[in-house]
């Protein structure tokens, strides 16, 4: 049984001399604390991503990116957040009010829930679910529903077309993604994220064992994250802003948060599945927990940097092309990868 954040907090408290028996109230308080910690952590990460995206893209494009607010514009995400919160929240006259309101939440909540079985570091996992990766895949499959709802409820043709595109793309890329994940699971023999990380500590990073699987996962992940070249969710040159054309203010902020939380989530999954998660060389003198979280963060940032770099290089793929790549190329390849992995695992090679 691996340690979770909860266990660690209880352990730390017992060190200071606080302990509690079976009473439920402190437990709930600790759980709520963890939830807040998770939210804040994700929000901070998202803020950092938005800053990093603007900065990296700026330097790719011979610009500087944000410079005014704070040193090198580090406070820019906070200013942006304040701006978004203070903006007028518009609901179109003919929109389906209730669905229009609920859609950002349907998109936002799963993108946070994804982090529950995510091993951020040694002992830094909210809950080590035995079905971890399956849970993640299942939860992240909810957000297309929210996108569809948002597009439909806006009563706007751009939003509707954009959401249909987004859903078609999400669904068609989830299949190769799950199929490649099965390859990893076959090698590990467990669905738990923590076990996958530990297995990579014993063997080697799965990116070396599963190169084909990794490439398929990478492409599918970029599509799932809805980043250029697969950002049909927005497709701003055709559909203005895709499914959130009509959204503004707080609701838009939710979509924005969800998008970047999704980016974080999928980068984290990729780091966990293929780059050894929080595993990495330890420097003596630094606590293992902090060191492992550091390694995890570095890996995630490297993946995010790659997506931003890619965004600065390539244009968007057309909708029929993206779907035919998904169905005609990615899924057969993912099946091939699964087949080879299965053979190797059955043969005892892996």
């Amino acid at each position: 049984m691996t340690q979770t954040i909860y266990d660690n907090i209880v352990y730390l408290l017992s060190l200071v001399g606080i302990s509690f028996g079976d009473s439920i109230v402190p437990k709930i308080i600790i759980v709520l604390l963890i939830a807040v910690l998770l939210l804040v952590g994700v929000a901070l990460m998202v803020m950092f991503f938005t800053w990093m995206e603007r900065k990296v893209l700026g330097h790719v494009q011979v610009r500087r990116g944000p410079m005014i607010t704070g040193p090198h514009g580090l406070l820019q995400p906070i200013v942006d957040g304040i701006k978004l919160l203070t903006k007028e929240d518009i609901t179109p006259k003919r929109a389906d009010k209730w669905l229009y309101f609920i859609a950002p939440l349907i998109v936002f909540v799963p993108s946070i829930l994804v982090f529950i079985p995510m091993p951020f570091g040694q002992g830094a996992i909210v809950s080590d679910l035995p079905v971890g990766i399956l849970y993640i895949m299942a939860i992240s499959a909810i957000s297309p529903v929210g996108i569809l709802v948002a597009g439909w409820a806006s009563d706007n043709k751009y939003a509707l077309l954009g959401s249909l595109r987004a859903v078609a793309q999400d669904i068609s890329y989830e299949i190769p993604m799950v199929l490649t994940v099965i390859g990893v699971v076959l090698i590990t023999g467990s669905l738990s994220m923590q076990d996958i990380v530990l297995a990579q500590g014993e063997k080697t990073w799965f990116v070396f064992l599963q190169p084909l699987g990794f490439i398929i996962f990478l492409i599918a992940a970029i599509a799932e994250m809805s980043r250029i070249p697969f950002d049909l969710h927005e497709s701003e040159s055709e559909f203005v802003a895709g499914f959130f054309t009509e959204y503004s203010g707080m609701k838009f902020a939710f979509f924005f948060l969800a998008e970047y939380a999704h980016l974080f989530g999928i980068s984290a999954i990729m780091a966990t599945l293929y780059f050894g998660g929080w595993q990495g060389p330890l420097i003596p003198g630094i606590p293992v927990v902090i060191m492992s979280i550091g390694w995890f963060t570095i890996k995630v940032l490297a993946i995010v940097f790659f997506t931003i770099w890619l965004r600065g290089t390539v244009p968007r793929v057309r909708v029929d092309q993206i779907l035919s790549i998904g169905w005609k190329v990615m899924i057969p390849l993912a099946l091939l990868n699964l087949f080879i992995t299965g053979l190797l695992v059955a043969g005892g090679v892996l």
Partner: protein
Amino acid sequence: MTWINRNWLMLGIMKGLVVTIKHFFKIGNRPVVTVQYPYERMEIAQRFRGLHSVDKNKCIGCGICEMNCPNNSIQIVRHNKGWYPQVKIGQCMFCGLCVDTCPMGQFQFIHVITTRLHNKAHKQVKQSKGGIITFHQLLEYLRFNLTLGTVPHNHGQRGHGTNF
């Protein structure tokens, strides 16, 4: 689609990625070209057509500039016992015909492109050290951004963009 099947290596995208990463790390002659406007300004050419200025002592108020203005934005008005051209900047399209046709050569463009309000806001931003600005300065900066003409104003109150 048949096409992509033949280009699995995506060499073109790789080449592009190399170009962009070169820019990111500033390899070769690829510097950042942004000019941080309130703090630094670009050099303005000698012939730049900014706001107008007239040498008060030499202008004879002949009205040739008024005649040559394509937009009728120049009027000769009385000012301190003399007649001088007055330019409606909001209407002017800075073609330079008035300057070219001035017989005395005293109608000129000066290298001023910002108005008083802009200058004030820029001063506020400039005074801030190291990019950290106070709340008051932030408000001033926001007001400067808001009054650039995109935001609707109350009726009767003119936008600052045209009220130079």
